[in-house]
C-alpha cells in the first residue's frame, strides 16, 4: 500500500493526478512536448505527428472495444470517413480547418452510431464480423462515390489554415495535432470518472445486470460507438491534413487490425494503454528499421537479410505481449510505478 497520499477532500481524491509528484512529471512532459519541435529533425517530427494521430484513433477504439467490450474492426474505415469529410470540406466548401475537423468528427460519429446498431443483438466475434462488413461497405463508397470522393484517384487536400497561418510542414502541423491529441486523451480520462464511463464498463462486464441498474443498453452502446467514431473522424481529418492526399487505399482493412493490436499491446480498458499502444505500434517498426540501418555496415547484405527479420521480430513482440502480458504495456508501467513507490520494500 502507498503511504503519504492522504487526502482532505473528495475532490482531491478524485483528481486525475493525485500527487504533486505526478503533477510535476506531467508538467515536465508537457514542457518536453512543447520544446520537442525545436530540437527534433524533420523525420522525428513526422513520426511524432503520426503517433499523435494514432493516439487519438486508438483512444477512440479503446473506448468502444476496451471499455465497452464491443469489438470493432471498423476504426480505419471510420478514419477514412473523417479524412474524406475534411477533403470534401477543404476542396469544395473551403470552410476553416478547425470547423472541418469538428464536422469530420460529427459526421463520423453519425456513421459510427449507424454501424453500431447490430451491437444490440450481437456480441464478440459476431459483432467483429458485422463491423468488418460495414467497413467493406464504406470502402466501396470511398471507391465509387465519384462526385464526393473522386473515386480511386482520390482527393488532394490543400494544407490546413488556421487564423491565416498555413500548416504545411510537420513542424507547424505538430502544433495542431498534439494539442488535439492531448484534449482527446483528457476527454477520455474525464469520461471514466463519470456516470457515462461507468456505464460503458458495466456494459462490458455484465450487460444484463447493467440494464437492471438503470442503464439503457441501446443508447449507451450507440453512444460508445459514436464517441469512438468521433475520435476516428478527427484522427482521419488530421491524417488528411498530414498526408494531403486521400484515396480509398489510404485506410486499408489491415489498418483497423493495427489499431486493435495497439489496444491489446497497450492495455484494453486503459487510457494510458491507448497512448503506450499507439506509440509502440507506430515506433517499434521504425526503431527496428533504424536497427537494421545500424547493422548494415557490419553485414554485407544487411538490408536484404534483416528486413524480413524486422517484420518477424515485430510479430513476435505482439505475440509475446498476448502471452506474457495480457494486460498490456499499461500493466508493466503500473508495476514499475509500484516498485518505485514501495522501494526499498517489495510489493
Amino acid at each position: 500500500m502507498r503511504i503519504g497520499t492522504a487526502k482532505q477532500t473528495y475532490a482531491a481524491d478524485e483528481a486525475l493526478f493525485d500527487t504533486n509528484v505526478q503533477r510535476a512529471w506531467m508538467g515536465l512532459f508537457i514542457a518536453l512536448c512543447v520544446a520537442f519541435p525545436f530540437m527534433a529533425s524533420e523525420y522525428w517530427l513526422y513520426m511524432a505527428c503520426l503517433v499523435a494521430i494514432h493516439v487519438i484513433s486508438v483512444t477512440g477504439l479503446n473506448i468502444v472495444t476496451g471499455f465497452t467490450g464491443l469489438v470493432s474492426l471498423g476504426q480505419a474505415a471510420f478514419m477514412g470517413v473523417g479524412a474524406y469529410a475534411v477533403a470534401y470540406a477543404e476542396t469544395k466548401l473551403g470552410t476553416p480547418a478547425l470547423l472541418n475537423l469538428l464536422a469530420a468528427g460529427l459526421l463520423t460519429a453519425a456513421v459510427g452510431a449507424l454501424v453500431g446498431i447490430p451491437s444490440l443483438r450481437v456480441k464478440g466475434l459476431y459483432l467483429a464480423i458485422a463491423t468488418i462488413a460495414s467497413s467493406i461497405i464504406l470502402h466501396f463508397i470511398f471507391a465509387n462515390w465519384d462526385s464526393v470522393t473522386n473515386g480511386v484517384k482520390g482527393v488532394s487536400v490543400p494544407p490546413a489554415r488556421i487564423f491565416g497561418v498555413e500548416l504545411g510542414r510537420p513542424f507547424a502541423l505538430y502544433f495542431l495535432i498534439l494539442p488535439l491529441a492531448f484534449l482527446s486523451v483528457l476527454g477520455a480520462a474525464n469520461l471514466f470518472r463519470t456516470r457515462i464511463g461507468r456505464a460503458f464498463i458495466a456494459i462490458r462486464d455484465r450487460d444484463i445486470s447493467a440494464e437492471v441498474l438503470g442503464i439503457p443498453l441501446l443508447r449507451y452502446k450507440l453512444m460508445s460507438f459514436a464517441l469512438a467514431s468521433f475520435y476516428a473522424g478527427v484522427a482521419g481529418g488530421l491524417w488528411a491534413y498530414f498526408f494531403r492526399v486521400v484515396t480509398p487505399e489510404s485506410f486499408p482493412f489491415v489498418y483497423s487490425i493495427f489499431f486493435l493490436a495497439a489496444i491489446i499491446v497497450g492495455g484494453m480498458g486503459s487510457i494510458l494503454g491507448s497512448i503506450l499502444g499507439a506509440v509502440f505500434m507506430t515506433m517499434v517498426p521504425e526503431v527496428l528499421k533504424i536497427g537494421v540501418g545500424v547493422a548494415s555496415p557490419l553485414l554485407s547484405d544487411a538490408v536484404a537479410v534483416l528486413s524480413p527479420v524486422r517484420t518477424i521480430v515485430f510479430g513476435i513482440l505482439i505475440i509475446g505481449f498476448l502471452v506474457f502480458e495480457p494486460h498490456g504495456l499499461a500493466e508493466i508501467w503500473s508495476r514499475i510505478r509500484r516498485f518505485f513507490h514501495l522501494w526499498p520494500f517489495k510489493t
Partner: protein
Amino acid sequence: MDGTERPVLEVNGLSLAFGGLKVLNDVSFAVPQGSVTAIIGPNGAGKTSIFNCISGFYRPKAGHILFEGEDIGPFHPPRRAALGLARTFQNIALFRGMTVLDNIKLGRHAHMKTSLLDALCYFGRARREEMELRREVEEKIIDFLEIDHIRNKPVASLSYGLRKRVELARALAMKPKILMLDEPVAGMNREETEDMARFILDVKEEWGVTILMVEHDMGLIMDISDHVVVLNFGQVIAAGKPAEVTANPDVIRAYLGSGDVEALRREFRGEAA
C-alpha cells in the same frame, strides 16, 4: 402490517411460461409499505422468476405488477430502476473490472444527469454531481455497511460475503423504494448471516426502504420478516406472518414432500427460538 396504507408493490395474477413449462401460475401477493416480505419455497418453485418479472427481464404471459399503484408492465428495466426498484442477484452480479467504489457509484446512474459533453469536460455539472455522489456514498453507504477498508479494491479480490455486502451497497445507491434481495445470505457463515440480518433491518428502519427477499435460511426469515409468501410449483400456497406460515400443513408438505409433519414442525420451532 398496516392495512390502511397502499402496498408499495402488488403482483396480480402473474403467469409466466417458457414454451410448455408453466413457471408461474396466477401468482398474487402484495408487499406492504415498510415491511420485510420474504418469498420462500423449494428449489424451482419460481421465486427468482418472480424477481425477474418484477425487474423486467421476463415478460409475463398474464398478470400485472403494480408499483405504488402504477402498472409497470410496459416499462423497460432501466425505467423500473429509475422508479426505485433495486435488486441484488442470487449469483452476485458485480462488475469485475471496477473497484468497490465505482460499483457502488454505478447504482446512482439513473438519478444523475451528466451528459456526454459534460463528462468529457468534467466541468460544472459533471464535477458537481460526482462530488455530491462521492460524499453520499462515503458518508451514508460505505460507512453504514462497514466496507470502508475495501473501497478502492477491485471487486474480483473480495470474499463472497463482502461481495454480497458490496452488492447491497450498490442497490442502496439506487435510492430504492423497494429493495429486492435474492438470497442475501446464501453460502454465508453464521457471523456473516447475522451481519447481513442486521444490515437488512437497519435498511428497513433507518432508510425506510421496503424489502422483498427470496431466502432459504428459515432462521433468518423467522427472525426478520414480517410477511411470508410461500411458493410451490409456481403457485402461492400460503401467505401470512412467519409463525402462521410455518404451521401450515401445506407448506410443511411442500418442503418435506410428505410424511413426518410433526418432525418438521419441531424443527421450525427449534430454529425460530
